[in-house]
């Protein structure tokens, strides 16, 4: 399958932080999850791929366009939908006016065509009933959907979502997952998240970042399989475990290298993620 995004050797340093360290990836149609702890470099990677920040080294293309040139960058932006980590709004705008404003930034200058597009995307995120409501009067979940609608203006081929489910209650999160899944049909979506449930429910592929590097690239099932035979149950927290916590049943769930005869448990995506981060930490410590 031809990749929508193809990047090689992306590196970016600011101050004393190596935010990106030789990142290479290929993204194809569907939702790809980007997991990682705070400071892993997720937001920086998204900003580089969204053409907001240039990398110090390395190169990438989006749908064949090279953003290193001004013309290429503009073509990439025409194919880009971007939902930042903390989307800002003009609070006095209504939902319609705000999306209309973003549509103008996306070069939709014909009033009639633009308004039809604004209606389409607001319908798509199920906000038809609050089009005329001021953004400052909308709930957090609705504001996030307004921002997603703005990202969907122009039917972009590459959608970048930076932690869109943060701060949403479970019902809003589930609703948002439905929207992301729908948005991922026929386009490439890169979804940065802290929530392993988001990845398990939405993504055909997952990248794990730590210390500015890609530590894992594969399917959610492959990430889960990394923890096979490395999760066990015990009545007390096992001091040899990388991580361990008391579960609702009163027993401890441990992740790491189990002792002989341990009662092994079925691993989850989160177990695989924790072990990947632990392996990355050990690699950094050894280096």
């Amino acid at each position: 399958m031809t990749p929508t995004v193809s990047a090689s050797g992306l590196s970016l340093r600011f101050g004393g932080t190596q935010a990106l360290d030789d990142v290479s990836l290929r993204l194809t149609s569907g939702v790809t999850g980007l997991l990682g702890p705070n400071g892993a470099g997720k937001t920086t990677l998204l900003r580089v791929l969204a053409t907001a920040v240039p990398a110090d080294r390395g190169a990438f293309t989006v749908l064949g366009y090279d953003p290193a040139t001004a013309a290429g960058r503009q073509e990439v932006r025409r194919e880009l939908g971007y939902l930042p980590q903390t989307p800002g709004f003009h609070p006095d705008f209504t939902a319609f006016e705000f999306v209309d404003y973003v549509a103008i930034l996306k070069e939709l200058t014909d009033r009639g065509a633009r308004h039809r597009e604004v209606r389409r995307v607001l319908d798509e995120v199920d906000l038809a009933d609050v089009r005329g409501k001021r953004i400052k009067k909308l709930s957090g979940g609705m504001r996030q959907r307004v921002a997603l609608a703005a990202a969907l203006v122009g039917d972009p081929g590459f959608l970048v979502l930076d932690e869109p489910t943060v701060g949403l209650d479970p019902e809003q999160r589930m609703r948002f997952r439905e929207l992301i899944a729908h948005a991922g049909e026929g386009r490439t979506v890169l979804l940065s998240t802290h929530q392993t449930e988001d990845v398990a429910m939405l993504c055909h592929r997952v990248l794990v970042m730590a210390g500015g590097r890609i530590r894992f690239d594969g399917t959610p099932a492959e990430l889960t399989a990394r923890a096979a035979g490395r999760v066990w149950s015990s009545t007390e927290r096992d001091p040899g475990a990388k991580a361990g916590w008391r579960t609702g049943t009163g027993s401890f769930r441990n992740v790491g290298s189990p002792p002989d005869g341990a009662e092994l448990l079925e691993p989850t995506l989160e177990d695989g993620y924790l072990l990947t981060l632990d392996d990355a930490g050990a690699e950094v410590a050894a280096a």
Partner: protein
Amino acid sequence: MTWHVDAEDLRAYAQGELAPPALWSADTHLVACAQCREVLASVGDPVDAGWERLDAELDAPRPGLFEGLLMRLGVADHTARLLAATPVLRRSWLGAVVAVLLMSIAAAHTTAAAPSPTLFLALAPLLPLAGVALSYGPALDPTYEMAVVAPMHGFKLLMVRTVAVLAAALGLSGLATLALPGYGLGALAWLLPALALTSTGLVLTARLGPVLAPSLVGGAWVALLLAAHAYDASDTLVPFTAAGQGVAAAVAALAGGLLFLVRDRFDRFQSVRFQGDAV
């Protein structure tokens, strides 16, 4: 109904060629007038487009006071919306500008024996500099991050907002100048320094960011005035003399040229990190 939409307007409406404000009138009228809707339905093939347009316009909000005024002045509706979103073009900022100007005019009238309205001339150039600084960048534009990655070039958006701020600030300062008729053309000596400071601030913004650059330029202006005052406090300060005006014009022209050369710097984030956010 006491009136109906003109047949030519309906035809233009159906073809998507009717411009505001006639477009708004037609939209509003068609919602309530079955007779005009029938005429619209009979104007030929493009009628579907007309209905679609009407449908889309039904829930499009009416432009606000400022936006509507701009459109009535002939500004394209999309440009008017960009201007309406300029952070400093709000009542609070405009109110502050008016207050500063009124105070400086009052000061000029209380020192009527002075050869020039120094306080007014000193403050007026800082208003557009501050206004432009407050209109662009991650600190004060809530949509900055989305705007930077949009296809519209960041420099174009910056220029749209700069023109809006300049028009507002220079317009208000111009009105204030009329309140100082005793000083003649000397009361207009703020204009070229205003353009010089604003354009220099923008050029330096490309390198130093939207906070430090205008702060440095504003500080340099104040320092220059203090130095001129220390040099000769009895007469018109040097920046407001003919020679000073010439220098200001040269600086404005030079900075304008440099600004064009560095325009691509406004097409990316002004800093890799902002708002203390995540890596």
